[in-house]
Each structure stands twice: as C-alpha cells, then as structure tokens.
C-alpha cells in the first residue's frame, strides 16, 4: 500500500518530523504578502505553511541559487590555489510545490544534467531533493495556463509525492521510490484513505484533466505560426512597453541563464542572468547581436515555445503565469503568442 491520508491538523507534526532528517522548504507568506519558500526552523515555522495557493515565488532558487560561489582562489608566491566551494549535499524536502513547479524542475534537470555536460553544483543539490506536490484541480489563479504547455493541474512529473486536497485531509501518494520511502518514514502521522476520499481524489484528477476554467490559452496552431513570424513587426510593437527589467526571467521557474564573474574576496561567483538585460548577448568585441527590446522579448518567447521544443522535445514554459502577474508593463506571453502575425 502506497496511499495515505494526512490530516490537515497533522501537517505541522509531519513537517517537524521531516525537519529532523532534512532541510525542509515550505511556502510561507512573508510580511509583504508574498508567498515564498522558506527554510523550516531557520526563517519559518511549520505552523506558517501555506498550502492553499500557488506560491508567488517558484522554488527554483533552492536548486539553482541566484548567487552561488563556485570556488575561491589565492595567489601566493606565483602559485595559484583554487578551493572549490563545498557542494550543498544536505537532504532537502520541498513541501507544497505545485505541479507546474515540479515539472519545471524536470526541465532544469535536462538543462543542467541531461546533456553531455553535468553541472556538479546543481546535481549535488538535486540528488538530495524530495518534492511533495499538491495537485491543483483547475487554474490556481487567473494567470495559469499549464494545459497549453503540455502540463496539467494534477500532473505528476517531477514529483516524488503527490498530494490531493480532500477536504479536511491530504491524500498522499508516493510517485517515486524516494517518495514512497519518505512516506514510510512519516507513517506515524498518516492514516488510510476511506473510499470517499479515494473518490474525492479521482474527482480532482478528472477535473484537472478536463482543463476547464482556464481563461488563458496558447494553441498549437499559434505556436506553429512562430515559424513564420520571426520577422514580424509585432515583436517591436509590443516590446515598446517592455522596461527591460528582469522580473519575468527571475520569477520564471524554468529560466536558467547565468553569468559568471570574479568578485572581490577572490571568489568566482555564478549569478542569475536575464535575456532582457542588454549585456546578456554583448560580445567582447562590442558586437551585440540582440540590441532591440523586440529582439530580446522575441528570443524569450521563441526559447520557451520553439527552440526548446526542437532541442529537448518540450516547451520550456510550464504555464505558471508568474511572468504575466509580475510584469510591470502588463506584457502577457499567452496574448503575444496568440496575436503575433
């Protein structure tokens, strides 16, 4: 048996038990009203966990921190010594992710560990992560469009444990070996599902799969049109109001571009970068192949819906809608791809 019931009133206890063996990240509402992931025991307590909404900030930074020291170096007597940073290999649990964010992590895996090269820093973290996902039964908010990107409000990709909100409890099911094992360890807090709860869970999955209630959509047909709209004037038209800030990329659960610099203190540091910044494509020669805002915006959209499909076989967008919610200029990726001619 691999199906359990976690009573909502026991979530706190379960989190504390998980916290004994691993670092646990939970969605918490911060004092400015944003729901973001925080570390249990460090800057969040189990009672603060928010499992009733899609977090405003994706869990990307847990696996791929915005600022990461790769190594430090020292020059002495003509000799250079390099000390690699210790990889973060603590056991970690992300509790309360949403399906879109779990899928996004599988996409990051393909980027950082899926090809010829493996990013050892990412991999060290990733191997120690267990993800508890809460299924949505429809759009979590009006910006959601996961069904358009090959996802679903109850998709299980990337999740180790799937949880379904069945009224006063969570129905929990181990998806991977890792997930099944961790549920075993939590057994003291778990019960057995009743037939009604089984039924509720099936209803959630059925409702999720129907993809009803989504107001934002991107159709296959409009994605197909991207082939012929590369030179469209539309990109410059909509980019006119882009402010070239990095909000869309920094809050995107799949945007993974980074920059590496040497910084004072003899550190080599990796930081997030954004394709919307003008130095992103600046060559040493001073040639910049993408200078216009339209080119930069187009590149982001094409990367999400065209290049990635060709290169890794899946859209690099999971339809979480955060770029829509946070764009200061009101740009909307679903609208852009549907409208471009």
């Amino acid at each position: 048996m691999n199906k359990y019931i976690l009573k909502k009133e026991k979530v706190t206890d379960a989190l504390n038990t998980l916290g004994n063996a691993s670092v646990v990240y939970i969605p918490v509402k911060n004092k400015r009203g944003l729901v973001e992931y925080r570390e249990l025991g460090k800057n969040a307590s189990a009672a603060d966990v928010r499992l009733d909404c899609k977090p405003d900030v994706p869990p990307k930074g847990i696996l791929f921190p915005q600022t990461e020291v790769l190594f430090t170096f020292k020059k002495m007597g003509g000799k250079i010594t390099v000390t690699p940073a210790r990889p973060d290999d603590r056991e970690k649990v992300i509790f309360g992710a949403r399906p879109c964010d779990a899928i996004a992590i599988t996409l990051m895996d393909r980027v950082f560990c899926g090809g010829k090269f493996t990013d050892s820093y990412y991999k060290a973290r990733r191997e120690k992560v267990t993800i508890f996902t809460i299924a949505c039964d429809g759009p979590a908010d009006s910006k959601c469009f996961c069904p358009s990107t090959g996802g679903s409000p109850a998709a299980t990709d990337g999740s180790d444990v799937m949880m379904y909100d069945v009224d006063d409890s969570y129905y929990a099911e181990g998806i991977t070996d890792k997930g099944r094992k961790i549920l075993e360890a939590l057994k003291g807090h778990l019960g057995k599902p009743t037939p009604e709860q089984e039924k509720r869970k099936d209803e959630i999955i059925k409702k999720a799969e129907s993809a009803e209630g989504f107001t934002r959509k991107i159709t296959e047909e409009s994605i197909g049109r991207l082939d012929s709209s590369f030179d469209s004037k539309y990109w410059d038209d909509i980019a006119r109001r882009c402010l070239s800030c990095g909000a869309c990329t920094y809050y995107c659960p799949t945007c993974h571009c980074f920059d590496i610099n040497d910084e004072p203190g003899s550190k080599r540091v990796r930081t997030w970068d954004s394709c919307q910044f003008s130095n992103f494509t600046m060559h040493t020669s001073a040639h910049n192949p993408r200078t216009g805002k339209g080119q930069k915006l187009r590149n982001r959209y094409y990367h999400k819906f065209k290049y990635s499909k060709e290169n890794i076989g899946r859209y690099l967008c999971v339809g979480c809608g955060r770029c829509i919610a946070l764009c200061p200029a009101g740009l909307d990726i679903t609208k852009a791809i549907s409208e471009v001619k």
Partner: protein
Amino acid sequence: MSDEIIRAEAKKALRDRGLKCVIGWSADGTPFFAETEEDIEKLSFNKFCANNLVPYLTQEIRSQRGKTRDGKEKIVKPVGIVVKGCDSKALLLLLNENILSRKEVFIIGIPCTGVADRHAGGALYRKCIKCAMRNPAVYDVLASEKVQEDTKDYSEIEAIEKMPAEERWKFWKDIFADCIRCHACKRSCPVCYCDECLLDPTDIAIKPDTTAEEKAHRPRWVERSVNIPENLVYHLARLPHLTGRCVDCGECERVCPQRLPLRLLTAKLEKDVKEIFNYEAASEEGQKPLIAMSCMEDDNGFIM
C-alpha cells in the same frame, strides 16, 4: 467622460501637430502607443491605469534624435502623452532638466483620484491613499475637472526616523535582504534616463570603439552577487542621484515584484530636501535643478 476628451484631443493633436504617436493606456490598464486615429479609439483611462508613461516618452523622443548623413540634426516629431498628476511632475522635471523640450511633447493631463493594481482587485496603491499631486503640474489640455488634493503625509518616515539606530538598521537590512535586483525600480524610474548606470552591472554601454583598457578599467561599484551589502549599495547610491529630482511618483515601489517599500527611501529624500534646502523637485516650470543652486549658506551639518 474623460475618455472622450482624451480621444478627441489626441486625434486633434495627431492631425494638427503631426504627432509621432500618443502614449496612453488601453482599457485593460496597460501602456498603449496610439499611432493612428483608429488606435486612438482604444485609448482609455480608469483606475487600473497605473503605469507612469514618462519613461516611454523619453524613449520615443530620444530614439528620433541624432544626426543625418550630412551632419544636420534629425527632425524630432513631437509625441503625445497622457499623464496623471504624479506622472506630470516627473515630466516637468525632465523638461526643467532639458532632457525633453516643451515643443516636443503634447500633454493630456488627467486629474486623478488614485490608481489600483489590476491584478489585485480594487484597492488603491498605498501612494494614492493620500496624495498631494493629484492634478497635473504641466499640460496642454485637461481631460476632466481638477480634484481636491491632500497634504503630504510624512508620518511613516517620521516613525522610522525615531527608531533607535540599531532597530532602523535591522528594518532596512530586512528590506534589502529581499531585493533580487531585477532592476525594475530603476528601469521604470522616469528620472533615471542615463544610457549607462554605474549601479547596474547588467547594462554597460560598450561601443565598437571602446578600447580593451576602458573595458578592463571600468569601475564596478556594484557586483553581480545579490546579497545585503551589494543590494544596499544599489539602493542607497541611487538616492544621491535622485536628490532634488525624485518627484515621489512611486513607480519604483509599484513595479517591485518583491513588494519592497521603496517609497520610504524616496519620500525621506524628498522630506530632507525640503527641510534642508527648502526645495521641492518640479514645483514650477523653468525651475533650476537643486544641484545647480548650491551656495555657501547651505546647511552642511550633515557633512560633519
């Protein structure tokens, strides 16, 4: 209704003044660039039209500037813009600083009773609850009757000033710890119009004739690392550059995806400038910049 006046005036100006475009909002509250009479029909104003459009005005005018092949200044087509009271203050500052010239802009002013976040229902932005600049400070036409303004309220700033130093440091550290340096505050700032910013390591103006030495010796005031010290330098070093210039339009705070209360910084700046130099940014047309008005009698108590 103000929409009809906006559209009628915009159309008239597009025809008579040969505007390049009119920058306004569409009905969903997003910025909109109207180039034809047909586009102008889509211009609208409602309480969700929150963006300060002035940065776009600078963009549209600057992109036309330059020299023709035979060395003559290019002709700049004037640009129309719809502004709320706070936006108009920023525009007035740019006019006073000669970044834009008055004949290059056609201004439709909107007396404003406050705007709200289009994603978060109808609650007004914090900056709009009490506002001392609801009526446009500079305009060609007004789209509606002027409205009653409030007096400026600095009670929040005063409360922070009264905090013991340690508590205040903790207060700000807490805010800077949450900044992710997406640069939205700086890029949406109407008075931050430099091509290159010393606080922005993602935006360095390298030209084909920039030498290797120049590139190597470029000072790096702020590193790419996102942490409290770097974030603090980023936010605090912006302030001297905004002294006597920031009109407290609140755009930085509105666009911040981390919802940092950045107006606490700019409002403090405004308050200090008022108290120390008896100066208020963009308070009248043709006003000299504060930085050009320094004199021996100025209070320099803050130095020693």
